[in-house]
């Protein structure tokens, strides 16, 4: 193994039924560096971490750890820790009702017989040396989230730690807390710990990291030194487009600005979305884009009333309306296909038929059930129209493939004949054929006068379908692109913050 390298993963592959989560991925972590692991949803970041820490066994490849000869096979996170690889997860997995010292040492094999005094002394020394503002006897729950996070790190590095994995440690911290955490990370780096840092905040990567490894669709895109990879190129690599060859400009005159907007919101905000303005015209297809966590889904959820709406002024067809819950939105002709199909979309145990008619039935009313014949007709019509592959309309939706489940949810909303349809990641995790079908369907709907908001992690797909793109970063709208501006280059620059 190369000198100065603490962890080296070579040609790692890992498959799950139907998905190749990792294919021949290499990853190298050096002594005393902070190394960012970047990639969009489904890129394979968490799978790689879980392979490193022994949560998942790898299908193929080798793993080398400093100080151990030959290929290392790690079977469990405990074993990983014994070999000097510690992990701190996004959610704090400590016990808030125990003290800081207890949290740092409890559950460690060698402390089966606890000497409380010793434990507190050791904890105090470690906290001091890492400049963590917490007292050993303090209850963990009384510390701020950042300090709790730091205690978790202290726990992780107390043992002879060579590799520290931080999985989105900053996602629930404010700027000041992030600064504290970064200081700790730099201290550890100075001590020679190799840190693998996962985050989706680009600024943070450039603030603290030395190197970046980018994954996409389970494959290695490359390893880069931070000075040699400008932010906009990083975005391009994550999204799968090299900057060169992006010059083709798609002229789309689909934007319709005249007339009353089908839907317009001013200062709309929800429990999860910052206030924003938005409007969409009849027959327009627009999109919200931005990296994961940029607030694009939260914004459309606010439009549909899916989260608690906290403010704003909304008009539908020019008339002021109140949309506080999904049913209100449905009454005004708005449909919403949620981002997480499994969690928010399908009613797993119910039949394809019931899943198709659900939204229209709810709109029709509790006391007006469709007859069996009507349900049959609706279901058959849409199973045929969208070419849904199912044994019968009676089949529980959970036994369909992901793409067909998605078509059922689409059918559910098409059946309500919405004026405005919101599709959040309608093509995620489904095969290419179905993807194109859905894209074509969106354009056909627009031709029929339906307004569509389309969200996708695949920028190409959005450029193909949308005539206007609203770009979000860190929960704010940072730009709106249309016409000649609709190029991948421009979108990525705007996301990365390089736009005028």
């Amino acid at each position, binding site marked *: 193994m190369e000198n100065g390298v603490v962890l080296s993963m070579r040609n790692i592959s890992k498959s799950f039924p139907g998905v190749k989560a990792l294919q021949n991925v290499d990853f190298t972590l050096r002594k005393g560096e902070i190394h960012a692991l970047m990639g969009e949803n489904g890129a394979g970041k968490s799978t790689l971490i879980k392979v490193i820490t022994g949560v998942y066994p790898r299908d193929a490849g080798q793993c080398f750890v400093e100080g151990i000869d030959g290929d290392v096979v790690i079977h469990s996170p405990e074993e990983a820790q014994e070999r000097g690889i510690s992990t701190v997860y996004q959610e704090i997995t400590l016990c808030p009702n125990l003290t800081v010292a207890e949290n740092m040492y409890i559950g460690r094999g060698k402390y089966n017989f606890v000497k409380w005094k010793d434990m507190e002394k050791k904890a105090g020394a470690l906290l001091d040396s890492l400049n963590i503002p917490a007292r050993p006897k303090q209850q963990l729950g009384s510390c701020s989230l950042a300090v709790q996070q730091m205690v978790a790190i202290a726990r992780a590095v107390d043992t002879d730690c060579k590799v520290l994995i931080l999985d989105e440690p900053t996602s629930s911290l404010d700027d000041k807390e992030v600064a504290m955490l970064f200081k700790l990370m730099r201290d550890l780096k100075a001590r020679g710990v190799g840190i693998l840092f996962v985050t989706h905040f680009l600024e943070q990567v450039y603030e603290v990291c030395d190197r970046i490894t980018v994954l996409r669709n389970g494959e290695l895109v490359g390893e880069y030194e931070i000075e040699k990879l400008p932010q906009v190129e990083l975005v391009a690599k994550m999204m799968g487009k090299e900057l060169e060859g992006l010059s083709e400009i798609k002229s789309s005159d689909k934007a319709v600005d005249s007339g009353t907007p089908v839907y317009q919101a001013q200062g709309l905000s929800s429990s999860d979305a910052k206030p924003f303005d938005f409007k969409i015209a009849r027959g327009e297809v627009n999109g919200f884009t931005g990296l994961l966590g940029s607030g694009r889904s939260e914004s459309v959820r606010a439009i549909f009333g899916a989260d608690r709406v906290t403010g704003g002024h909304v008009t539908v067809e020019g008339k002021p309306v109140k949309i506080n819950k999904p049913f209100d939105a449905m009454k005004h002709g708005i449909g919403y296909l949620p981002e997480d199909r499994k969690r*928010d979309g*399908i*009613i797993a145990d*119910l039949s394809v038929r019931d899943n198709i008619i659900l*939204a229209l*039935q709810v709109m029709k009313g509790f006391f007006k059930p469709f007859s069996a014949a009507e349900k049959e007709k609706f279901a058959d019509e849409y199973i045929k129209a969208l070419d849904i592959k199912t*044994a019968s309309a009676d089949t529980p939706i959970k036994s369909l493939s992901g793409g067909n489940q998605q078509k059922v949810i689409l059918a559910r909303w098409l059946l309500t004949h919405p004026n405005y349809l919101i599709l959040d990641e309608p093509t995620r995790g489904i095969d290419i054929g179905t993807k194109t079908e859905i894209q074509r369907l969106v354009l056909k709907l627009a031709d029929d006068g339906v307004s569509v908001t389309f969200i996708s992690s695949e920028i190409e797909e959005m450029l193909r379908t949308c005539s206007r793109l609203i770009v979000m970063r860190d929960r704010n709208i940072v730009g709106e692109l249309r016409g000649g501006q609709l190029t991948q280059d421009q979108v990525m620059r705007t996301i990365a913050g390089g736009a005028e």
Partner: protein
Amino acid sequence: MAKKSFAAKIRNEYSQLLVPLVALALIILFNLFRDPGFFSISLAKNNLGNTVLQGNLISTLNGASELAILAMGMTLVTAACGGQDISVGAVAAIAGSVFVKVLRGSAGVTPLTVALGILGGIVVAMLFASFSGTLVAVFKIQPMIATLILYTCGRSIAYWINGGATPTVESPIINSIGSFIPGIPIPTPILIVIVVGILFSLLFRFTNLRLYTQTVGINQGAARLNGINSVGIKLLSFVLLGGCCAIAGVIGVSRLGLINHETLLLDVEMDAILSVAIGGNLLGGGKFKMSGSILGAYAIQALTITLYAMKVPSTDIKAYKAIVIILIVAMGSPVVKEQMNRLWKKLAGKGSAAKFRREAA
């Protein structure tokens, strides 16, 4: 293809009823070998001079009436809330007390006052049930904890309503609710179960109660995103169960002509929950089959009557019941079902292979 999907439909829709049906069949079969006389049904004159049906089967059906009605309501609460109401016995006692209170407070027992009494019982029971329902639906307290409140204090409330230990109501009308209507040889409670069953099926036919309840039970978040008011649906399930409690309470009071707030439908909640489980319904909520729960209720009662008929001392009955219940529940467990499925596929596979060979020849 069409035929296959029809078979699949039958399998999807009715395979759930297999366990309660088999349980019931086994209990009946056991009795057939033990004593064929168990099944004899005879016409006899009772002490009021009515010609009535008598026999173990009739008393099983009759005796299970309250349980069957409660099991129907419990099925809905289970499906919508993914939890159970353990206060049904106590709420039935409250409703029974209200029923008695109305009758004793009015000038005489007439059809009108009885109707008022029943109505009063239903309204009060629904109010109490909606108290529990609010805790569950609005305050998101686990159903068993929420209903523990009324389970604990319900029978005291029942006592306060009449202020006496066991107030009685005597009238031919009460008698005809609790035992027989003159001229009809079938015990009235059996008829009431049929009426309640029909009411529920009408409710399922003319409203979306089933679709909404199942949707809320399977995926509450998705239900909301499809415009369903899941709080309302959960509350409704409790209110309907409250109505069931009131009817069961009225039957129980009418059987004896008195209300004993301590013993009326004592421990019935566990049997009601068990009926739902034997009926193949997931106690975690979601898809449900009310007919399964009804069959489950009859299976439990058949078991009790069989044990009585075998002259098992009443002190020992619960232990024997427990043993049989272990068997029934194990029969319906996913592990056993999986094994049975495998066995079934193996047999079916052999069958079709043989058929294929025949056709080839």
